[in-house]
């Protein structure tokens, strides 16, 4: 049973090695590897669903000497999201990179990226997290620069450097923790920190600050987001999808773990408030820039800055809510928002990539005819857009509903104002795109359809809007939370 966890990393890793060694069969082997990885992730999800959290001691040494992996509900949910998004992106990529010499380079890095994401989500060790972060950062930057254009290379070089700065800062925090507690395992450290009381306050605070700042840089928390839009907007579409939907979430995932688990006993509400306010600033600023963006993919990238901001706004609310169903609901809402954004943004980028390939550009103002020629893609953009806005029946609608509920209960009404502004701006930028589909251009008699590329995007959109919005209940079970009830 516990061998499942390393399997979820080993399978994409081996697949990556195989496509590296056999570049001629890259696409075929890549898709097979993607399917196998999805199966492995599905197995982990099922096991967590049936048995609760899993841990695996690698090497049989046990903590603190060895490394362990673990999968709780949170990790399993993100793992499953990663698998579905990555699978859809893989299928899409076979079409996107068909007849392109880039395919040979795309597949190994792509599978390696996937392996690093799985490793990150399943890691239970702070240093192990550092290695996965570095692997993730390297793969992401390399993939982002795949188009080879000067803009893309420059943006992704900056992304790589920022990521290195962030992860080194994070590592300094890890060093401090190791020097104080002599352990690297998250659960063990959390015990030590809780038991330490006030004794090591300075170390805890310094480590938390260093690690959070380092990760916030990678998570593009305002005002450390400057690198994200050019990097994500200039990458090839499948890569943008993964970068925005998955890679950024990796850093957010670690921050959430740090604040809600590792440093739960020492993280103060006022410190969480700072993060929340930065998140709120990110929501407003990101949405505003998205509205002003001239290009479709740039718009989507700024929207990621905004959507990440929402996730940070949950932290002060959770800190202000006493343990109980209300807090559980907030946590579940946080996960739900992260999942919906993952699906929706991936779908959006994939669709945007099709538009770009069809039109030869992605300037929003000139997309009228293209939007009408590609009804399925336009529909996908609409669905994803409504999930980004937070309209029902998307998962983010429930997330926003629960966030507002939590804000009212905690008496922190200002988050609602932010939510309002963010939602209206999101509606404005989404409909700025959609209104292009209703222009005066002549109705095309034949639509451009490419099922292999359009269906994955549509599936992701439907997951964000339909599945998560109407059947979010199992998520609570998966996260091991009691039914929220009338909170």
């Amino acid at each position, binding site marked *: 049973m516990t061998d499942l966890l*390393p399997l979820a990393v080993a399978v994409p890793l*081996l697949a990556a090695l195989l496509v590296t*060694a056999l570049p001629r069969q890259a696409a075929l082997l890549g898709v097979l590897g993607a399917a196998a990885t999805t199966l492995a992730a599905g197995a982990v999800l099922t096991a967590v669903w049936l048995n609760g959290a899993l841990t*695996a001691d*690698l*090497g049989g040494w046990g903590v603190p000497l060895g*490394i362990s992996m673990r999968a709780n509900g949170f990790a399993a949910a993100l793992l499953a999201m990663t698998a579905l998004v990555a699978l859809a992106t893989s299928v899409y990529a076979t079409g996107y990179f068909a007849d392109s010499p880039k395919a040979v380079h795309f597949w190994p890095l792509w599978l390696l990226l996937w392996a690093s994401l799985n490793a990150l989500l399943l890691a239970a060790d702070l240093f192990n997290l550092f290695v996965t972060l570095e*692997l993730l950062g390297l793969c992401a930057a390399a993939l982002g620069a795949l188009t080879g254009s000067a803009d893309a290379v420059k943006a992704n070089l900056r992304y790589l450097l920022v990521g290195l700065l962030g992860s080194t800062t994070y590592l300094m925090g890890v060093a401090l923790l190791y020097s104080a507690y002599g352990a690297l395992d998250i659960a063990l450290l959390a015990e030590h920190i809780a038991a330490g009381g006030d004794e*090591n306050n300075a170390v805890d605070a310094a480590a938390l600050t260093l690690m959070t700042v380092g990760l916030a840089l990678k998570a593009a928390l305002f005002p450390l987001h400057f690198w994200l839009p050019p990097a994500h907007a200039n990458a090839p579409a499948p890569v943008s999808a993964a970068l925005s939907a998955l890679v950024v979430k990796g850093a957010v995932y670690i921050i959430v773990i740090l604040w809600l688990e590792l440093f739960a006993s020492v993280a103060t509400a006022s410190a969480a408030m700072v993060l929340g306010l930065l998140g709120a600033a990110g929501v407003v600023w990101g949405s505003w820039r998205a509205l002003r963006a001239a290009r479709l993919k740039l718009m989507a990238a700024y929207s990621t800055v905004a959507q990440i901001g929402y996730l940070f706004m949950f932290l002060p609310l959770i800190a202000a809510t006493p343990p109980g169903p209300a807090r559980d609901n907030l946590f579940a809402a946080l996960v739900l928002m992260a999942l919906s954004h993952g699906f929706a943004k991936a779908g959006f980028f994939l669709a945007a990539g099709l538009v770009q390939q069809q039109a030869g550009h992605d300037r929003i103002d000139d997309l009228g005819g293209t939007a009408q020629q590609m009804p399925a893609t336009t529909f996908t953009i609409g669905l994803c857009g409504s999930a980004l806005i937070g309209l029902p029946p998307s998962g983010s609608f429930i997330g926003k509903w629960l966030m507002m509920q939590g804000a009212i209960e905690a008496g922190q009404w200002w988050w609602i104002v932010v939510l309002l502004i963010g939602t209206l701006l999101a509606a404005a930028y989404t409909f700025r795109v959609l209104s292009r589909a209703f222009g005066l251009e002549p109705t095309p008699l034949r639509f451009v359809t490419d099922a292999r590329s359009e269906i994955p995007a549509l599936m992701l959109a439907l997951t964000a809007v339909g599945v998560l919005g109407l059947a979010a209940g199992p998520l609570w079970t998966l996260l091991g939370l009691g039914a929220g009830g009338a909170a």
Partner: protein
Amino acid sequence: MSRDWSLLLGMLLALLACVLLWVLHGALMDQPGPRLADLAAANVPYSGVSNPVTSVLLNFRAYDTLLELAVVLAALLGIWALGPAVPGFQPSGPVLASMVSWIVPLLILAGGYMLWVGGHAPGGAFQAGALLGAAGVILRLGGDPRAGLPDETMQRWLAVAGTAVFTLVGLALAAAGEGFLTYPTDWAKWLILLIETAATIAIGVTLAAAYVGGRP
């Protein structure tokens, strides 16, 4: 960035350094406990190698090392993805050429020694791999545009060899019921040596190829 900003930033960061130094000093003074040192030392005899660092790297925390090999591979793949290599330098003069001809075998030999000695004394796969890589670098400086590397297919296979052997050993152990990367004590030494050998070759090839800097 303007000078003033740079100065301000410098002052702020100097402050940060002082704070961190104070924090670290406090942490080191407060708890001069053994941390993991004693635990690790106690388990080294069961790890299959006697060099404690190697036993941490390839046994206790082998998973980290596996991912680390993947990082090296990722860097190489990223470099390959950027296009073909820049052509090499002009063929070197006779002095350099003769130097190359004796220094390269020496480096390879030293690499092999480093690999073997890693089990019980300072050394190991990474250092050995680095020496192999260095041999490649010197070959290229000496005028060989390919830095002594084999053809593309072979390079690809060699580059993935380390990670592949590592992962396969891990999975085989899991399949045998031991658990992922859990070596039986009796076999540990040989399994580690196997992994290290593959890793050394992979690292050497990868580093040399990274130095060449482009798709073969």
